[in-house]
């Protein structure tokens, strides 16, 4: 318990520091966006919010993530059954490796490994992206989709869309330690910084659930009260006070109180918004508005869109490179 409170204080100091520097913070260097129907990645300049390059990446690019040291960017090219790797400075495609059948979403572990959901195989797989070696396979429910990793790397959540579950997997054992039933078609999840809580979206039941990881119980639930809301990505603000939820066909970002799950605001963005990414300082939120072929840039302090950036066809995933 003592350690825990020390950790909390430490976190508080870090958060305060981040808040104080927000105003003066430089915008992120680049934002990378996968375009599902263009087979490309759009490169957005973080200062001008314009596309400065387009990378030919492979068939049906969806999930995207950056190596912890920033040296490489990974893209799930689903119809090539592979993960493509490119250089975030030169935009050169370096290599690709087999990512299991139809890789869609993945998350990058602090140790550099990728945790990938393989939709048609009911499995999650672990890859070393440097060697392309598959390190482990974990049997999960039907149609695994979202992958979230606790900040300390000790736990991974995989959502099974057709089995309506969050599977909590211990690392490095790669054993499932909890299966948590949630609403229909869970698509994405995110941990709090301490790794004690997770928040998950369910697309078909149109709701957000808050989960206690230790006990595996649901401790909060909020329907998005919009029949068109088919929520996908979900992120916690840097100060952990707010949740940002991509509302799908509600064409909005929902801003929720992370504690009570009360809905504070709906920020209108483009059509069928799915992907979300935050800048490192938390001041900017980037959204992929799939059917509008654009990315919206949101100032998280005023919770308003400050720019929209036309990108390729059906933008899906987004990652911020600082």
């Amino acid at each position, binding site marked *: 318990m003592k350690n825990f409170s020390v950790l909390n204080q430490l976190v508080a100091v870090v958060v305060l520091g981040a808040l104080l520097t927000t105003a003066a913070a430089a915008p992120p260097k680049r934002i990378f966006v996968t375009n599902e129907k263009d087979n490309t990645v759009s490169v957005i300049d973080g200062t001008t919010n314009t596309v400065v390059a387009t990378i030919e990446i492979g068939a049906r690019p969806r999930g995207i993530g950056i190596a912890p040291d920033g040296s490489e960017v990974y893209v799930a090219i689903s119809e090539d059954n592979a993960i493509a790797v490119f250089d975030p400075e030169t935009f050169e495609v370096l290599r690709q490796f087999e990512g299991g059948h139809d890789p869609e979403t993945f998350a990058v572990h602090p140790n550099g490994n990728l945790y990938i959901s393989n939709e048609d195989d009911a499995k999650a797989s672990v890859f070393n992206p440097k060697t392309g070696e598959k390190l482990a396979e974990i049997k999960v429910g*039907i*149609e695994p989709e979202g992958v979230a990793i606790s900040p300390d790397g000790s736990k991974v959540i995989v959502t099974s869309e*057709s*089995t309506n*579950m969050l599977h909590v997997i211990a690392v490095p054992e790669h054993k499932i330690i909890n*299966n948590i039933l949630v609403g*229909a078609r869970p698509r994405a999840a995110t941990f709090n910084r301490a790794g004690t809580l997770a928040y998950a979206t369910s697309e078909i*039941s149109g709701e957000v659930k808050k989960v206690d990881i230790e006990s595996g119980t649901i401790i909060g639930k909020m329907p998005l009260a919009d029949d068109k809301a088919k929520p996908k990505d979900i992120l916690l603000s840097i100060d952990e006070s707010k949740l940002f939820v991509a509302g799908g066909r509600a064409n909005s970002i929902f801003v929720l109180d992370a504690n009570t799950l009360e809905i504070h605001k709906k920020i209108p963005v483009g059509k069928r918004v799915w992907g979300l990414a935050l800048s490192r300082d938390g001041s900017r939120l980037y959204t992929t508005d799939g059917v509008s072929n654009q990315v919206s840039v949101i100032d998280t302090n005023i919770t308003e869109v400050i720019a929209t950036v036309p990108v390729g066809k059906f933008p899906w995933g987004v990652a911020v490179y600082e």
Partner: protein
Amino acid sequence: MYYLNRLLSGLCCVAILGLTIDSRALSAEEITVLYIGDADSAAHLGARQGLTEANAQGEFMGIQYRLVSQTEIGEMPTVPVAIITDVDASRLVQLADQYQYLPLFNLTAKDLSLREDCIPNLFHVGPSEAMLRDAERQWRQHAPDSSARARAWHRSFRKYAAAQLNIRFKEQFKLAMDDDAWAGWAAMKLLADTMVRQPSLAGEQLIAELKTNLAFDGQKGRDMGFRETGQLRQPLLLVEMDKIIGEAPVRGVVDSSDLDSLGLPFCPK
């Protein structure tokens, strides 16, 4: 039969009193579902697909489902929690009366009269004739020259993860999933999805839960629940020349989110 009925009503009363602990704890790990109909039908294969997927979920929660298939109700080793049927309307009414403490899922009988009767334990998973007609009418309004027919499912359906379900069915049975197979899958899946959350549910409590609290993902892009008529609300597909050309409720003709624009929304007064 008499014995079975007594057992069922006994179970039901125990459940009503809330004394569910002992009676269900023994059987909590294994849940039996009875299937009445032709074992070679697409509907039955669909139910078996649903069983596979129910068990994929149950495995993580310590629950196992069994599907006992019979053409007519005979000897049963265990009391089933529900009956899934591929029989005609008159047989359905008989069964519903005989087993009124069990939810009965109708997969294939499309008669409007069955919905109008509002039999409390009867759940219609496939669409009614009236729903199909309304979908076609909406489509005619949208495209008056079209000869499209309304369907519950199609093997080429891809959106909303329909592609994944089509792949899974084809992998298991080497056959394309059709409307009846979808209904069989949906019945088993929605039952398991309800039971996995409250394994002690049985009898009238289970019937009430299905009727009021269902938000089922039938892999057609919408959450589905049962109407008071017992009909599963669902979007339908418009198919012409064996191709999907639209979805109902038809956008622009009605509010596309209004699933009750298809068929009979309420019990006749």
